[in-house]
């Protein structure tokens, strides 16, 4: 609440509000340091693609943002409000669970393996968190749920269970589940990597549409075409550090780092 006053505006982005700011994020698993100090800013409406080979720390980075992994040190702010700060015990050693949960609900995640709740119908999946976490009234939530299912094009599957849907439809339902939170931003953790090739397109089309509607998204992906054509910003991670960062034109057109050039040349797109 005190943080409302700290909402920053980046002059280079016109009046776009800073939605997420990450400062010097570190994460170690035992002796292995996976993230070695990552900083990142996302503005409202940004679509940031995070690229990198396996082991570069890109998924760990995403999972640190909503604290599915606890960062070792660093700061994360969402619209100026702290999500994590290693200097403040309220966010690290003596974590305020309620606050963490509230921040998580503002940046829902779309998982590689969908992770739709298998015992709920599609509609129930979409309604669960808005009604039980955000405590929105039932009629409002159902209306909202139907509208987001329309948006991803699977409103007719509302009463089916996830196992009765194709992978592409399941991932679209998972995106609808995230949209129903009226999120500040959505985290995508390799959303198309578990899909059969012929199903990748329908999910990317939905994500493309969201980008056009200015939904703020952070996308860990291997889909180079998506990163190049849809992103407002591309971040290339290598061994736990931001190796290259810029607009898609800059990163794909004239990458400054050797690693990034090698990565882009070995990835076919």
């Amino acid at each position, binding site marked *: 609440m005190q943080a409302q006053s700290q909402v920053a505006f980046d002059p280079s982005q016109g009046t776009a509000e800073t939605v997420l700011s990450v400062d010097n994020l570190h994460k170690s698993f035992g002796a292995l340091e996976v993230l070695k100090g990552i900083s990142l800013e996302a503005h409202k409406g940004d679509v940031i693609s995070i690229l990198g080979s396996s082991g570069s720390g890109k998924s760990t980075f995403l999972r640190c943002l909503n604290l*599915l992994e606890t960062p070792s040190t660093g700061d994360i702010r969402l619209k100026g409000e702290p999500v994590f700060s290693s200097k403040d015990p309220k966010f690290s050693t003596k974590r305020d669970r309620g606050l963490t*949960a509230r921040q998580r*609900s503002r940046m829902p995640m779309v*998982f590689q393996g*969908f992770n739709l*709740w298998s*015992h709920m119908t599609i509609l129930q999946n979409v309604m669960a968190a808005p009604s039980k976490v955000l405590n929105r009234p039932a009629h409002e939530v159902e209306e909202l749920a139907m509208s987001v299912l329309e948006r991803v094009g699977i409103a007719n599957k509302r009463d089916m*269970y996830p196992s009765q849907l194709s992978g592409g439809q399941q991932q679209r339902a998972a995106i609808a589940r995230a949209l129903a939170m009226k999120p500040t931003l959505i985290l995508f953790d390799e959303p198309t990597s578990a899909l059969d090739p012929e199903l990748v397109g329908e999910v990317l089309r939905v994500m493309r549409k969201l980008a056009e509607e200015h939904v703020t998204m952070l996308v860990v992906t291997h889909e180079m075409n998506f990163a190049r054509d849809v992103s407002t910003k591309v971040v290339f991670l290598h061994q736990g550090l931001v190796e290259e960062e810029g607009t898609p034109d800059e990163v794909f057109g004239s990458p400054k780092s050797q690693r990034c050039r090698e990565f882009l040349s070995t990835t076919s797109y």
Partner: protein
Amino acid sequence: MLQGYGPLLLKGLAMTIGVSLAAFAVAFVLGLLGASAKLYGGRVLRTIAEIYTVVIRGVPELVLILLIYYGTPTLIQTLVRTFGPESMSRFRVDFDPFIAGVCTLGLIYGAFATEVFRGAIRSIPKGQIEAGIAYGMTGFTLIRMVIFPQMLRFAISGLGNVWLVLVKATALISAIQLDELMRSAELASANTREPFTFYLIAALLYLSVTVVSLALIKRTEQFAFRGNEARG
């Protein structure tokens, strides 16, 4: 043929079902608590739960039933008379056999239920719980929305077994003078000197409870497996 003992047997059957349901409810709650302690508790809670399941599963039911029904009141009396005020020197407690039976069986089968729930919770795909956490669910909401319904399909066949064994174990409570089916059959056979008739009827009644239970378990299984294609 029943020489007027039919109503007594039916009353006994009703009591058996009543004790079973109440004891199963106790076992269910203890099982959830025990499994939570084993999986999420600190060292103290984990140790308590571990001792509970080892001791209970390692001592015959009948010994525990007699120990609790006869032993506990005596122990409490001795303690109160020894350490309590002068005015309580003739203090007496008696356990109601129904409550003693329910508590004992609940305690025993709670230990088995603990293991069933523990295994079931561990079988939940990690992503299901992670999705709940990522969407801001905590504590009770997470349990009610995700963990419990997910766990149920892995627990249902084990719980069904616990129920079937528990129903049969109620026969042991005849040892503490509760008028359930077994004791009614004993009375009837002693008075009529026709043990075969009455024990056979008792056996058939127990069997009928099991058959009905199996059908209900199957229905519950279908519910618990909703949305999941593979059936246990």
